[in-house]
């Protein structure tokens, strides 16, 4: 009996010690930086396109203010707005502007927010690297592939264009909570949310990459940063918006030639959080001031000079 009691005492002691040690030893108490002992938590949620950008900003911010805890979730632009308008997050990442209904929901809940354009994006269409026939697709062809009427009908590449080979068409794309989904369907199919449903939807664009890289006849769409990050696994397609075939890149997005799939990316900041939470203020300031460098390091399309000015104005309006 004494053995067991002693054993349990030891086990309990070890467990408590482990917890205590992990709690203490965990905080990076580098005495290096004097003064900036800012602490606090920041919750952000939303687009899986913008998420990595906010993650990159949070990573860089951590070297300036290590005491601040930033969490970035990716429930999709729509999902992010739902939690934002419920007051659960301080920052909402979005790859499309907030809808009227969503803005109303926020207003009803008493949430005031500020919209800041934080980067640009070229919504990219991607195919398998072995796909040598789809070099350039017109908007009409994309519409043929993705329209609601094509569900169950368009299942082969040669139905899109007779010159394409007889290869089965497998589709991956964004889920319905995704701003990418809303934007793509709006621009390509003419109506936001109008899409065929027989594809593999996911709020996680990484799943799309996995899917497209593994199948010859696969196709998907997501933000440019994912294409640039994984250029060895998937192949981007030139899009012809009426002015010729254009490949998505920083230049073509910034000068507007990559149409109609060029788009701005947003963060929405909760005004009350900004005013009351010092950590939020510090992070948002840092984010906006370093928007260009963060975007470049994260392989996003940075703001144009005009957009930088606008962003600074938005930031200033937050304080006021």
């Amino acid at each position, binding site marked *: 009996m004494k053995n067991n009691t002693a054993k349990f005492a030891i086990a309990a002691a070890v467990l408590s010690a482990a917890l205590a040690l992990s709690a203490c030893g965990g905080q990076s108490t580098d005495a290096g930086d004097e003064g900036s002992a800012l602490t606090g938590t920041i919750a952000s949620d939303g687009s899986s396109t913008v998420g990595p950008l906010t993650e990159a900003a949070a990573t860089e911010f951590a070297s300036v203010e290590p005491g601040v805890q930033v969490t970035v979730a990716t429930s999709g632009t729509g999902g992010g707005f739902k*939690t934002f308008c419920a007051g659960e997050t301080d920052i909402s990442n979005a790859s499309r502007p907030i809808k009227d209904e969503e803005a109303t929901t926020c207003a009803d809940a008493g949430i005031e927010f500020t919209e800041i354009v934080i980067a640009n994006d070229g919504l990219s269409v991607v195919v398998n690297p072995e796909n040598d026939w789809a070099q350039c697709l017109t908007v009409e062809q994309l519409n043929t592939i993705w329209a609601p009427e094509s569900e169950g009908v368009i299942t082969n590449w040669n139905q899109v264009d007779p010159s394409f080979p007889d290869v089965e068409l*497998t589709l991956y794309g964004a889920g319905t909570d995704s701003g990418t989904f809303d934007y793509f369907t709006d621009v390509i199919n003419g109506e936001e949310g*109008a*899409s065929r449903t027989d594809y593999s939807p996911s709020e996680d664009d990484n799943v799309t990459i*996995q*899917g497209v890289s*593994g199948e010859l006849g696969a196709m998907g769409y997501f933000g440019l940063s994912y294409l640039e990050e994984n250029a060895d696994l998937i192949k981007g397609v030139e899009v012809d918006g009426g002015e010729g075939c254009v490949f998505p890149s920083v230049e073509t997005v910034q000068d507007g030639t990559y149409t109609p799939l060029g788009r701005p990316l947003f963060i929405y900041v909760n005004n009350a959080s900004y005013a009351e939470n010092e950590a939020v203020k510090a992070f948002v300031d840092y984010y906006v001031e370093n928007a260009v460098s963060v975007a470049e390091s994260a392989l996003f399309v940075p703001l144009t000079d005009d957009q930088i000015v606008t962003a600074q104005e938005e930031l200033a309006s937050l304080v006021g």
Partner: protein
Amino acid sequence: MSTWSPPRPPAVISQDSLRARPRPLDTAIRLLFRVAAIFTIIITVGIVIALLIPSLAFFAEVPVWEFLFGTRWAPRFADASFGVVPLVTATAWTTAIALVVAVPLGLGAAVFLSEYAHRRARKILKPVLELLAGIPTVVYGYFAVQFIQATVLREWLGLDTGSFSVLAAGFVMGIMIVPTIASISEDAMSAVPNSLRQGSAALGANRMQTTVRVVFPAALSGVIAAIVLGVSRAVGETMIVALAAGQQARIVTGPLEAGQTMTGFIASAALGDSPVGSLEYDTLFAVGLLLFVITLVINFASIAIVRRFREAY
């Protein structure tokens, strides 16, 4: 002569000293224990209520027959459909493939461990087999999508399959279930009294015949219980199918196809966000309710079968 006389009782006996003292602390503690046991009922009731309330809201909008028999699953789109048949076919395929793998391997291992192995070999082999059960399912999922699907199925075997398939997921799930089936079957076979084996040997049967014709039928109820438990685990498994079976909800017609299972849908719906009270939230719980009912039926079937086939020794 020495005589023994009983010890003298004390001079005064009061009734009170013979009555047990009231112990309020005892009663309180035993009440606490009782509450703890009742807590398990509260959990079950909680599960049922938690699943039922959103599901009732769901069925107020979507007719039950459309849910159960509809063949198009597109709950979050503008042109929504709520037919759960595609999810059920994917679950059926992964479960079936898992059973095809797990039942022969599990029963074979169980027979070997119970009837043929030395005691020492058994002492080593059984814990090693249990290790398979201890590996987290997410690690199995990683293995399924990275190695089985990408390397084995596509590279080595050159099969015509994409990045995800029910075969990869089902195969790995089968291996995960092997210890469950093997362990319970082996216990059932070991519990068969030796006298039956001895009788069979006395009649001239060799070990294989004894095993197949005497031991196995005697342990049948335990074996069936093991297989049914394996089915239950396969149906409820989430991580392996979320990683390896795919996200597209479609009617699965072959093992090399990808498909979204019921649990896969729950996992992917959980990653998006649905506010409490919305139709998407309710859809999640409706599928959860279906999953719960299916596993409940399987479990009750297992108990009933065991009771029916059990041989009492």
